[in-house]
């Protein structure tokens, strides 16, 4: 009589309910994302670059990057054989750009993961603990927020030395404060909600409260921030490599620009040497920006159309 006839409702465990709810919200999110034209454009653009980066060894052998194996004349303008011309030692610029996609994307993503990790950890911790720990971390965030980004990155990169891992560390360690600021604000608003009071009353540890209750609530914000942060990381990698602070053994879009500038591509009028890697940076950064804006619009409908 009063027993629900729908079987699935009766046996739903809390876990299953959570799962269904998550799946539904994910579906809603995907539908809204698909309706964003610029977001889908960004995603397509990104997919193409990711594919090129993954398939780089199939498109050009690694030996195409070897200066000693280059046979063509230096500074050849684009032709059928070399669609993007050649560099100062006769290597195909297209091969350099294709291989450069790997390092630029990997550094951009890895640095962002590091920066998000630090930013989220500091943000949640400083929002959760009200005492000296929270205040201290908040102060630290303030300090790092004010220190100019590029000079700090330059100083760190100089002290650490040049390597692939170090450039990831430098970018990750210098770009976390803005994330921490946003996450802290969100944590403070989550902390006031009744379910956290309940968790506290039931004796949940601080770690439990932070990871099981606060983290899932700040996660969407973290993700929206991540896509925007990747674009900043890629721009930073390009800038640092251009200043000669990148990994000396790897080709990235920034290091191609550095070599081209140092080899006098400008006075040679070799626009193809410099144009291609720069356009790649712009396209990838734009792709991440468009995706990030689309996600932000979905999470915060007030921003719609802005």
């Amino acid at each position, binding site marked *: 009589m009063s027993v629900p006839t729908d079987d699935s409702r009766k046996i739903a465990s809390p876990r299953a309910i959570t799962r269904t709810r998550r799946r539904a919200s994910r579906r809603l999110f995907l539908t809204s994302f698909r309706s964003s034209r610029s977001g889908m454009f960004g995603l397509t653009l990104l997919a193409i670059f990711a594919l090129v980066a993954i398939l780089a060894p199939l498109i050009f052998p690694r030996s195409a990057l070897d200066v000693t194996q280059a046979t063509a004349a230096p500074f050849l303008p684009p032709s059928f054989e070399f669609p993007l011309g050649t560099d100062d030692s006769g290597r195909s610029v297209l091969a350099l750009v294709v291989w450069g996609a790997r390092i630029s994307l990997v550094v951009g993503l890895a640095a962002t993961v590091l920066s998000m990790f630090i930013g989220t950890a500091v943000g949640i911790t400083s929002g959760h603990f009200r005492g000296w720990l929270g205040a201290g971390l908040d*102060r630290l965030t*303030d*300090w790092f927020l*004010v*220190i*100019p*980004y*590029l*000079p*700090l990155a*330059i*100083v*760190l990169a*100089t*002290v*650490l030395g040049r390597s692939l891992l170090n450039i990831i560390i430098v970018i990750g360690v210098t770009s976390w404060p803005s994330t921490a600021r946003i996450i802290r604000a969100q944590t403070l608003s989550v902390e006031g909600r009744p379910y956290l009071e309940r968790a506290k009353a039931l004796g949940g540890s601080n770690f439990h409260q932070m990871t099981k209750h606060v983290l899932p609530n700040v996660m969407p914000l973290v993700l929206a921030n991540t896509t925007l942060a990747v*674009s900043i990381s890629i*721009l930073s990698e*390009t*800038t640092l490599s*251009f*200043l*000669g*602070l990148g990994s000396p053994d790897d080709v990235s879009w*920034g290091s191609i*620009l550095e070599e081209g*500038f140092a080899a006098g*591509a*400008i*006075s040679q*009028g070799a*626009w193809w040497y*410099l*144009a291609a890697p*720069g356009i790649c*940076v*712009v396209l990838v*950064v*734009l792709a991440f*920006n*468009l995706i990030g804006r689309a996600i932000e619009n979905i999470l915060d409908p007030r921003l719609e*159309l*802005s």
Partner: protein
Amino acid sequence: MSVVPDVAATASPVRQQQHWSPSPTSRYVARRVLAAISTFIFVIFFNFFLFRIMPGDPIALYTRGRNVDPIQIHELRARLNAPIMEQFGQYLRNPFTGNGPSVKYSAPVWEVIGPHVWPTILLVGSATIIATIVGVWLGIRSGWNRGGKFDQVSTNTTLVLYSMPEFWFGMIMLIVFAVGVGPIPGLFPTGGISTPGVDTSSVKGVLDVAWHLFLPVTTLAVIYLAEYSLIMRASIIDETSQDYLKTARAKGLMDKMVRRKHAVPNALLPTMTLVFLNLGFVVGGAITIEFVFSINGLGSLTVDALSGPDVPLLQALFLLFSGAVIFANLVADLLYGYFDPRVRT
């Protein structure tokens, strides 16, 4: 036990009589100034210890990639082997020069830095003024008619510009307008800030400097106006939904007047704060632009100090850049507090 209410009872009338408690405004100013000072103190500590807690032989870091006289190395080692607190005391007496003279120029860092300040201020100053004016104008126009043709074109363009490494844009400008591509002849100089031998205080000299700075200033301005116009657009859109605009329209004001007299003054505030906040970052952004356009400013000096690296010079430059940003931040905070009393609580 009864002490507490007693104090409260006697203290409050006293305070009322003598106006003893500081006003919210002065408390706001004091708090901001203290925050700026604490940040600068942090930077001073950070700048010293960062270079000393890193693993490895510091001599290797100081002299990497150069042949250094053994006597010089001996002096350097003696200086670095002094007790850390003694070194720190030395450094605190003058944080700019306390790390010793510039390794590369063998001169006090202050003397090395001095002549490089003006080119940077000239470059960054003119680029910021142009970027602010054009960015604000673009933001107002596209925000006021959101979704229109102008808005679409302007927002898409600014998004692309916002995704651009400024030094790359500079190099493309150089190739196209200074070296010349195809039918376009080279119109502008490829670098420097003036033609050697021209007196920069004469009319001809000023024009010469303007001609030299045209490309780098345009590059920086174009990159930075992208951000300003996006922010200005967002804050104009924020204002369009406010009630006071409805009131202004209801009393029959023309659209142009509503925009100029009501929406823009309110929307300008966040953008202006951003301009000041960015001032420090613009100084950093000028590093690559100066390098590309061979402008002998602080940015080129930084790049120069990197190849070496010239650690004492680098430390002094880092301190200078950070100090500039902290100061710009303080000015932005105080201006915001002055124009928007709500934040002064």
